[in-house]
Each structure stands twice: as C-alpha cells, then as structure tokens.
C-alpha cells in the first residue's frame, strides 16, 4: 500500500470512528444540546440590544427633560408675561376652590384686567 492509499485509509477510518463516537452521545446530553440550539435560535426573535434600547430610551428621556428645562428657563426671559400667566393658570387649577369659583373665573379675570380693586372701591 503506497503512502496516498495509506493516508486515504486512515482518513476514511477516522471519519467512521468519529461518526460512531458522535452517534454514541447519550440522550441526556443530546437533549441538552437540542435545548441550547432552541435557546440560541429563540434569541433571534428577541429585540436586539435590549440593554442598549433601554439606554436609548433613557437618553431620549434625558433629552426631553433637558429641552423642557431649557424651555422653562429660557422662555421667561423673552416672554415673561405668558409664562406668568401660565403659572397662574396652573396655580388656579391646582387650588381646591369650590366649583362656583371656577364658574366665575372669567369674571375674576375681567376684574383683574380692568384693574378693579374692591378694597379701593370699598
């Protein structure tokens, strides 16, 4: 038998031996391997970069909060009146007044616009 035939016989026998060896894997290990394969494939259907998407959301949240802070801090300097009006509105809405007060809100607003002071009139 020449060298090439010998090598061919060796590789052929090695393939057979390896196939037999692989086929003799016990059922418990096979089931573990199968489970790992399924787990690996299920990772395909999960959203990629889960942690980083949360990081992205946080970054987005920080950006929105930053923008809101910018608006709150910058707008009064250019339109102070509107800001104060808005804060008054918030104050009025947040107060625990009777419904009657809200019914007459426009009237009170008119009084303020007309700069009518009851104390001065009385």
């Amino acid at each position, binding site marked *: 038998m020449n060298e090439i035939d*010998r*090598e061919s*016989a*060796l*590789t052929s*026998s*090695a*393939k*057979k*031996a*390896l*196939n*037999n*060896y*692989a*086929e003799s*894997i016990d059922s418990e*290990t*096979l089931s*573990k*391997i*199968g489970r*790992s*394969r399924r*787990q*690996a*494939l299920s*990772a*395909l259907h999960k959203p*990629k970069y889960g942690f980083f998407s949360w990081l992205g959301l946080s970054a987005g949240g920080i950006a929105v909060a930053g923008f809101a802070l910018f608006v709150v801090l910058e707008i009064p300097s250019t339109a102070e009146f509107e800001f104060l009006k808005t804060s008054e509105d918030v104050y009025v809405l947040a107060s625990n007044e009777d419904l009657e007060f809200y019914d007459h809100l426009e009237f009170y607003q008119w009084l303020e616009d007309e700069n009518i002071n009851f104390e001065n009139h009385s």
Partner: protein
Amino acid sequence: MSVEKRAYTMAKIAVGNPEDALDLVQDAMTAFVTRYVDRSEDDWPALFFRILQNGIRDWYRRSRVRNRWRVWFNRSDDQGDDILESIPDDKGVDPVAQLSNEGLNDAIIKALKMLPVRQQQVFLLRIWEGLSVAETATAMVCSQGSVKTHLSRALQALKSRLDEYQL
C-alpha cells in the same frame, strides 16, 4: 448528522470533559446566532467553528492558569498531594500499546485525543467537517500554510500511533 453533534464531539475530544464541552457548544451557538446570522450562509460553517475554536483556546488558557495556581498551592502546602503524581512518566507503559487490544474506532479516538490541540482540531475540521483549507484557516485564526502543516503533522502522528492496525 447535525452540526451541533459534531461540534460537541470536537469540543469533547479537545477538552476531554463532557460538561465543559457542552458549555463550549452552547456558548458558540448563542454567540453565532447573535453575531453572525446576518452573514452569508456560505460563511456560516467557518464562522461557527471559529467561535468554537476560540472557546477551546480560552478553555486551555484558563486551565493553564488554574493548573499553575494549583501547582503553586500544592508546593506551599506540605500536606498536599504529591506533585510527582501529576508529572507524566515518559518511561512508563506506552498508552498506544494499551490500545492494541481495543477496537480500531476507540484507538483512533484515543490517538486523536493525544494529538496537540491545534493538530487535532485542524484534522477534525479538514477531514471530518470537510472544511476547505481557507475555511479551516478562518476557523482556526491562522494562515493556510499553518493549516497544511498542522494537518500533515497530525496525519504523520496518527499513522505512527495506529501503525499496528495496518491502515
């Protein structure tokens, strides 16, 4: 035969421990799916086995460090095991001779386990898995010349170890 069965067999021959082999295959499958599934299907075998080979290399690196610590602790501990027990006996019974009464298949697997891990894995990838020289080089992260050298040495070693079987 499924690729994960072959991968497990390769890992087990390389590391010798079924649990570690299973861990290596699990990690390789997960890493492959998360990293390379978008790549061309033709590249999959080489890429998958590259991850597995990296895992095997890391395993050897870790076990080397572990063994170094173990030896160090054994040296410092007088009550510890005799360190001479862990040194291979070159003049002892040749393991190949012990194979003479066993079947050819077992003899081949044992001879494969005795090969240096690079030669062993190149042999498995080229001969059993059927990867090309270029694919094997990608998987082993080495040059194509190294693949040919490792394969040639592996064949020589196997031939001499299995000489009695007259392959």
